[in-house]
């Protein structure tokens, strides 16, 4: 099974470790990722807030390029995932926007007819591999790990998941890896997003609530599915520890890093060394289980 891979800015930049693990895990699961040639910014976050038309044109260019490849598009960042879907929805719904964008694409020798399927890698793992098959592939169960799932707000907003899938179904990934599922109410909450850079006190508070609640529920790990969430939740921890003297220290790996660990993929291939809050403490506390099987 092959997919067109749309990395977006994060995965090629600060989130290299997410990308490494994504490639490693997809490889191990027999899923091929082919990076979209000549991709550009997805149009998300600040862009769409300043100029919707420009943002949608950027997104549409990516979609038009992807359409040529004829495969489903995997967008591993929630912001890319949502903006690409939104662009598709708006293009289908608003004919005047569509006409303007079609004209813009045509100037670049492109056209988009609306056939591309945009997918999140998590959807693909759950749908194509399935919880049951994944459980069977686990070589090093994450026994004793208390893992809280954190999906971020954009995965289910404003568009719902495909085929009636729910976040509760996604949660089952965690026990499949051998870990304990922490019932984390805030799993689809905002991570603070770009507010951490614009209206800091609001953004900080949103991150803080996530961390505080994860700790309150005795989570060892908060697993994310979005590199932007990952960045936000990880980088702000020190500040709370320093300022409020509250221990909110918790590793925030990308979900393919956890899957990779459980599948027995070597740690160096999963970019674990690039996590700002390392998994070392958890790995030390539950080492035996990690080496048990194989």
């Amino acid at each position, binding site marked *: 099974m092959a997919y067109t891979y749309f990395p977006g800015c994060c995965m090629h930049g600060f989130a290299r470790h997410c990308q490494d693990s994504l490639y490693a895990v997809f490889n191990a699961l027999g899923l091929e990722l082919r990076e979209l040639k000549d991709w550009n910014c997805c149009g998300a976050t600040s862009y769409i807030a300043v100029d919707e038309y420009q943002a949608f044109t950027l997104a549409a260019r990516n979609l038009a390029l992807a359409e040529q490849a004829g495969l489903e598009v995997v967008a591993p960042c929630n912001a890319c995932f949502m903006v690409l879907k939104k662009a598709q929805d708006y293009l289908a719904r608003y004919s005047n926007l569509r006409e303007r964008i079609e004209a813009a694409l045509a100037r670049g020798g492109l056209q988009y007819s609306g056939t591309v399927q945009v997918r999140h890698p998590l959807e693909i793992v759950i749908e194509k591999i399935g919880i049951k098959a994944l459980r069977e592939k686990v070589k090093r169960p994450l026994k004793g790990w208390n893992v809280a799932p954190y999906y971020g707000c954009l995965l289910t907003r404003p568009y719902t998941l495909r085929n009636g899938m729910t976040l509760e179904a996604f949660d089952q990934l965690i026990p499949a890896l051998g870990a304990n599922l922490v019932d984390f*109410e*805030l799993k689809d909450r905002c991570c603070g997003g770009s507010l951490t850079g614009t209206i800091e006190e609001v953004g900080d508070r949103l991150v803080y*609530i996530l961390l505080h*609640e994860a700790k*309150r529920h005795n989570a060892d790990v908060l697993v994310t599915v979005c590199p932007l969430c990952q960045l936000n939740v990880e980088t702000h921890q020190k500040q709370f520890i320093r300022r409020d003297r509250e221990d909110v220290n918790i590793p925030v790996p990308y979900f393919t890093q956890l899957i990779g660990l459980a599948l027995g993929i070597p740690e160096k291939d999963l970019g674990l060394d690039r996590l700002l809050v390392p998994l070392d403490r958890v790995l030390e506390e539950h080492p035996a289980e990690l080496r048990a099987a194989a």
Partner: protein
Amino acid sequence: MNGNGNLRVGLYICHCGTNIAGTIDVKAVAAWGETLPGVVVSREYKYMCSDPGQQLIVDDVREQHLNRIVVASCSPLLHEQTFRGATAKAGLNPFFFHMVNVREHDSWVHEDKQAATEKAKDLIRAAVRRVAFHKPLEKKRVPIHPDVLIVGGGIAGIHAALTLANAGKHVYLVEREPTIGGHMAKFDKTFPTLDCAACILTPKMTAVKKHPNITLWTLSDVTQIEGYVGNFTVTVKRHPRYIIEDLCVGCLECIEACVYKQAKYPDEFNLGLGKRKPIYIPFPQAVPQLPVIDRETCIEFKSGRCKKTCVEVCGDRKAIDFKQQESTETINVGSVILATGFQVFDARRLPYYGYGKFPNVYTSLEAERLINAAGPTQGEVILRDGRKPKTVGILHCIGSRDENTNRWCSRVCCMYSLKLAHLIKEHTGAEIFNFYIDIRTPGKGFEEFYQRLLNEGVHFIRGKGAEINTWPLDPSEEGKLIIRVEDTLIGKIRRIPVDMVVLSVGLEPHADAGDVRRLFNISCSSEGWFLERHPKLAPVNTFTDGIFLAGCCQGPKDIPDSVAQAGAAAAESLALIDSKFVELEPNTAYILEEACSGCKTCIPLCPYSAISFVEAKKKAEINEALCKGCGTCVAACPSGSIRQNLFEDEEIFEEIKGVLAHA
């Protein structure tokens, strides 16, 4: 050209006040009408349906010797009968009349006056050309069976049944649950008068059981209905109760004697808040006053090795029968009243309110049972975790007025939420918060009740509750359900910690309302409520003659409205029965025998098996009594030998040419 002698058409264009005349240039149309071939009189008039309007037709027929009438006005649904009547009064066969719909289909849906006027002319031209081919027809008269079927034994069905039975008509009341009473039986008090629901309902339930004119079938479903107004044949499937109704005296000793000493299974009547045994009675005043055995949980059914203490205690009465089978009854009725009610919105569909996840989140119907003295807690508000609430949040509009679920207002939730607020406060002294979008109190005594609640110190926060969560941000929120809401009166997001949440769930059509609708051949609104014939003027009729609606199956309504509608449906049904005969539209199909080639194409097409093949003649034959006049066979006949009264081929061909003739 028409085989009916010299054609003399009278054409009448109605202004309908400004409804038609405001968009269509009626004067121009009338003047133009005079130029149409065959038209002798062409007039416009303010209200054709009025007495003077109809008199115009009568006078013109007499003075001008008209032999065809065309009226361009509203939908034939409203006034076709009126103008047929006027035509008949003038001495013509009523089917020498044809109606043109220039209001619903023209003036009301177009703004361009010129285009609307042209459209009216086209439609009128078609009618004038069509009417030339009309033939004199007779309506068939068939007697009406005086018995009535009522489906659904809630308050609407009960009231309609009693009304009809008191008028001396025989009623079959079919209910699928083990008892009648419906939702009302579950309520504690009724708004705004706070009279006890059971106290006013149960006497009516008992009256149903005792009434000699009512046949009550519980645990029963209507599975088939055939026939037409006045003459329906209905099949009712009766599911086994495993209790022989005629032998049981309702002593209920069998329940006491059951090998289960403690009630163990979730009790449906109390929405799972209480427990029942495998043999049980839904609630103490259930009608019929008979126990029922649940196959799924009864040991005898599961293993066949129960001690059957229930049978022992029943003794000589021998009322318990584990071998009881499903049975079917076939009845003949002349009319049907559907009172199948509603279901409450499933709060699980909105996961952000935590219903089913947080134990202390209740639906409003559960709250009714919780404060009911006959309920699972004997009327004490005790939460699922055993505590008594000190603070309670009531969230309005759950599954109502919501783009994501149901868009309609469920009409009763504001008032029942106020009632619950009052009752919970009375029972517990708790502090109560209502979260609302708008408070809607348009009923007798409703607004006064709202003011009373305000004076009682119940809090009202204008804002739809956004979510219920359990993550505390400060110690006062520990262990509480936290309601997040935008208080739109102060423009702030608030977090309000409470012990108990009541979700005021909306009303929606039954999940199987679509099946019921198809069974009875009636229409539904796009939301799934049964569709009334006319929203203002025929609110309890359906488009299928002889089938009437009562209660919430037609749309959300409160108890008095349901009762009023049930009375209206009963009255409509009585009026139908007492007219003794029903006249059927003469739009049946018939065969021109000489043209029939005996190809049998038509025979499998008829859903009513009205067409048969006569071997002796090698021709098809139509049984007029069975034909319902759909015309499917007419369109299929390769030799054109099947024809349809009122919708003859040449009539329709003339209409086609008529609407296209101006080019």
